[in-house]
């Protein structure tokens, strides 16, 4: 099960991922990001504190926007990943391609 909650804060949009992202629901994550691009979001924070699991389907969503976001100057920061989930990003070296912070406060500092 995956629940996605998007909220608009003063300087950024926050996507909260609750539960598990796999091949059955990664399209929902994609839609949430597309939605923010359409709203011309410049700063996107992904709250991973309640993300229990992510498979390559979900990781692929993040990967597919890296280049676009660089071109459009959109900042994406993921924060709060638990150790198990963070290790999965690390296996693929995504910790070098995506800005990942442990705490929300650090993620917010990235966009200020």
């Amino acid at each position: 099960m995956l629940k996605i909650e998007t909220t608009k804060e003063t300087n950024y949009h926050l996507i909260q991922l609750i539960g598990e992202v796999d091949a059955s629901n990664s399209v929902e994550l994609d839609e949430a990001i597309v939605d923010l691009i359409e709203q011309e979001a410049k700063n996107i924070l992904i709250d991973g504190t309640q993300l229990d699991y992510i498979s390559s389907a979900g990781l692929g969503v993040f990967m597919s926007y890296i280049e676009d976001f660089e071109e459009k100057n959109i900042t994406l920061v993921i924060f709060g990943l638990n150790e198990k989930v963070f290790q999965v990003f690390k296996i693929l070296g995504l910790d070098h391609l995506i800005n990942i912070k442990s705490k929300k406060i650090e993620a917010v500092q990235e966009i200020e």
Partner: protein
Amino acid sequence: MKHELKLYCDTTRLSDLRIFLSEILQNTSLSEIEQHQVTLAVDEVCANLIIHSHGCNGEEFIQIGVEKDAGLLKIEIRDSGEGFNITEYREPEINHVKKAKRKGGLGIILVKKIMDKIEFETSGKQNTCRLFKNLKSK
């Protein structure tokens, strides 16, 4: 002891697979992080089969067998139909995946990095993919 699961080819069933695996893996010497990763590797192989070999046809199924034997965890994934030989598949470079803006291609990289040995075999219509993970002695 051998544990078996019949998994119907519907991606929403992948969560059942993960519950099945986590219950078995809890009773091994694998750390929590390793248990999580082995579960992920099996999820990746099965998700590929469900989507690419079976076109998400919920009437077809895959069989998963898990066995612990002499310091080795063996996971056998059997299906019939068009086989996918994971050992012959040349996975893309991460940077290529990024540049191509593709959403796929990462799963097999994960499987190969997580598991210690992978075998694939086709006999008639039956395909078998075996994933192995070394278990430390307790």
